């Protein structure tokens, strides 16, 4: 779907932040993803018009980075770390359990569009390995059993907003040193949350 005027205004505000229009490409792709759950062709056309590069150039960037989704994600995007620290701390079993519960292989979405499962490289939570993200909200120290409970909880309770701290309390274990800014508002979409872009407003 093409963009409505509100979205275009938002896009223009973002473009304003950069000395060159084309530099706004990254954030605009997140904006598209926030809207559709993935980067659809119509959004590519809109973005290319807004920043004056060709559609295929937009698609080239959008398809290079894995966090720009090329297909619609489920309501919950489960990203499980498979890098070294997590691997040492048994992420393999976490992955297996989640796969079994959801019935999904890497980069698949279930038929009800509830879950999308992906294995990812280090998400910067090595101190609390193994780590999992739900819609990019990080939960650390997730044991294989807790991982199953987490999935069940999502499936049965279907929370609208995912808040990292809440899930951490319920399903997490050891946490790494928390140096991030205080942000407990959570996220309600599968786009990475950035307040400046508008993908993570107060919910």
């Amino acid at each position, binding site marked *: 779907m093409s963009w409505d005027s509100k979205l275009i205004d938002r896009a223009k505000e973002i473009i304003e932040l950069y000395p060159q229009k084309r530099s706004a490409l990254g954030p605009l792709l997140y904006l598209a993803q926030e809207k559709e759950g993935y980067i659809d*062709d119509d959004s*590519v056309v809109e973005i290319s018009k807004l920043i004056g*590069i*060709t*559609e*295929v*150039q937009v*698609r*080239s960037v959008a*398809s*290079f*980075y*894995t966090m720009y989704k090329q297909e619609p994600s489920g309501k919950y995007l489960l990203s499980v770390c498979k890098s070294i620290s997590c691997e040492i701390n048994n992420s393999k079993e976490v992955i297996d359990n989640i796969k079994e519960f959801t019935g999904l292989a890497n980069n698949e979405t279930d038929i009800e569009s509830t879950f999308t499962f992906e294995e990812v490289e280090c998400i910067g939570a090595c101190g609390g390995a193994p780590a999992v993200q739900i819609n990019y909200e990080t939960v650390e120290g997730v044991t294989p059993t807790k991982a199953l409970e987490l999935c069940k909880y999502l499936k049965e309770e279907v929370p609208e907003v995912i808040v990292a701290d809440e899930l951490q309390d319920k399903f997490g274990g050891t946490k790494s040193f928390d140096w991030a800014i205080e942000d407990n508002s959570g996220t309600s979409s599968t786009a990475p949350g950035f307040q400046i872009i508008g993908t993570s407003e107060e919910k």
Partner: protein
Amino acid sequence: MSENIKFTVNGNELEAKSGELLIEACENSGIHIPRFCWHKRLEPVGMCRMCLVEVETPRGKALVPSCTTEITEDLVVETESEVVTKAQEGILEFLLINHPLDCPVCDKAGECPLQDQTMAYGPGESRFVEEKRHFEKPISISEIILLDRERCILCARCTRFSDEISGDPLIEFIQRGNKTEVNTFPDEPFRSYFSGNTVQICPVGALTSTSYRFKARPWDLKKVSSTCNCCSVGCSIELNTSQNKMLRILGEDNEFTNQGWLSDKGRYNFDYLHSENRVLNILNKSEDSFNEISISEAMTKIKNKIDELDNPNVKFLLGSSSTNEEYFVINEIGNYLNKDKFLSRDSSNIYFGDDLLFEGYFGDQYSQAKLEDLDNSETIVVWAEDIKDNLPILYLRIKKAVKNGSKLIVFGHTNTSIAGLADFYFGADIVSNKFELIRNPNEIEDLKNNIEGKKVTVIAGKSTVFQKKESLDKLINFLNEKSELQVFNAFSKGNTFGALQNIDEVKGLNEFCNEFDTNAKNIVFTIGVNPVNSSFFGQKIKEKLIASDFVISLDLFVNETTELADLILPTTSLGEKEGTVTNMEMRVMKQNKILPAPGSTLSEWEYLSSILNVLGEDVNYKNENEINNYLSEKYINQEKLPTFDNLNKPSNLFGVINKKDININIKDLEEDNFSLLMVRRLYGDSSTQINSPSISMLGAHKFIELNSTTAKKYGINSKVGNLIQGPNSILINIDINEYLPDDLVIAPINRRGFENIDPCLDFDITEAKNREELNVN
């Protein structure tokens, strides 16, 4: 940056300019380093790693890509060491992992850098036993280009070309890692005027063209250098034939003109040579149909006709595809039949078929520009017909100069396609809809500031047949006074400058119509020109031709003009004749022959000198070379004359810049009340293009351009409509172009359907709603 420094390669001390790339410096010293992605006309990217060499660093020897390493003082390089050899083998083994190795069915095999370098530097065997990556075998990414993604080695030559050189990046890498592929955006094909260049520079057989696919093996090709005649840039080309068929045209890297590139028109406009529609025998009209006659019958007929008509007016309408030698003979016969034989007239009877030709800026007070001047210009000013469509390689040269820092100033309203490139685009507030300057040049600050005391090159020509010379004069004289000015006369058609150099006095089609005396006896020669279809004066010319007593057409096809002839003498074309052509810099270059003249075709000069002979004139040209010697003598600079000998040495490429006095006698058109601006597009409905099946569809798209305010006036919201004038109605696409001033509508003149549209009459545009139903292409 340019002082020479010393460096060592394989133990030999060499010299090169500091800042030069290692791969290039080695190449210049005769040391070849294998490569795939590096191309001397593109920015280096270091994608393929084939060019790895060992250099000494403070921490020992290291492998570096020589295409991204600049040489430095005392650099020590090994290009053939054991480590380098191992690296090359490794890289090739990697490149071949996913390569399908389908050389037996690949067009590139035999001239494929991947194949050749695998033979020269490869490991000889592969350890890869797994399944290769698969893609759908060739997908078409445009009407004329196919892409086989399995063969692609991801060198980014094609994507860099379309981004850096032609400026229409419609192909890009999609996905990442093992899944990376070159592709277009869905529904946004690789429609570029320059797409064929990517086929030529692709180092594997991934990009192929529809026209050459499965046609020949490179080792079966016969090759000759020549010069393209599609526009007046005169690009250097290589003609490739097999079994007396033209199969392919490649660009040659001529530093002074095309630098390796060609427009797709120049590259693919050749199938017509072998079209079944081509006229191969002399056609004589009796009643209303043509029958074939022999050359002697034809000559007798011409002689009898001339005798019978008793002092007729003889006029010549010329096209732009003749060689200088042919124009020279045309001039001779023109003079003979006009001045000597019949009418003792002083003024010329030779009319050149380009509506936009006018007196231009020649003579001592204007310094004639060369293409290389663009690179040294601080400012480039363009006011002419659409450069990208009519002088495509000149557009590339402008783009390159702009990239390297020249300022670009573009005057409206026909060059909107380069407006995005321009530092200043002067639209409605400076150029009126009738192409007059609304403000005096010296009041235009942005112009003044960027030209005063600077090196400036101007590309000057009429944007429409209605434009008055005076408006251009104002600009050119201002520039000439205030800046160090070089002038390009932007006459875009083929060998226009050859005609200007070799014909004593050239007139235009308007003069033809005005000077045509219906009460007199008239004989008209049309030579490689189809004004009835492509000129603003087409309708009038048609009437005159019908009113003539005898019309002789020298041409390749029966078309809107030649079908009115009493006699069609079939002629030779590119590759079938030898001669010289002159480009817009006054550079005389050679066209070479590689194909036999088909059927009973002859060159234009052969017919014309035969005609002179039957009329009793004692001319006896043996061949092109002899004519070339005559015409060469008349060039001003006697030091280096454009004789065949001089042009062939040291290579065909560079040509000879030389001048002759130019005498154009064309007056402005009086009427200027046009309602529709009709412009020439690169692709159209010329007889050669519509008879070249691989590109004929490119000239089928019908469209108009206007800005949104004008569209609103017509009440148009959709992208499809009808252009209506009297009984004519054309289904068109409507392109909104905001660079255009209000109330100006642009339509193509050289597209089917538009030949009956009169730019001076009122027209209407109506909306057509349903695109799918209408099936506009």
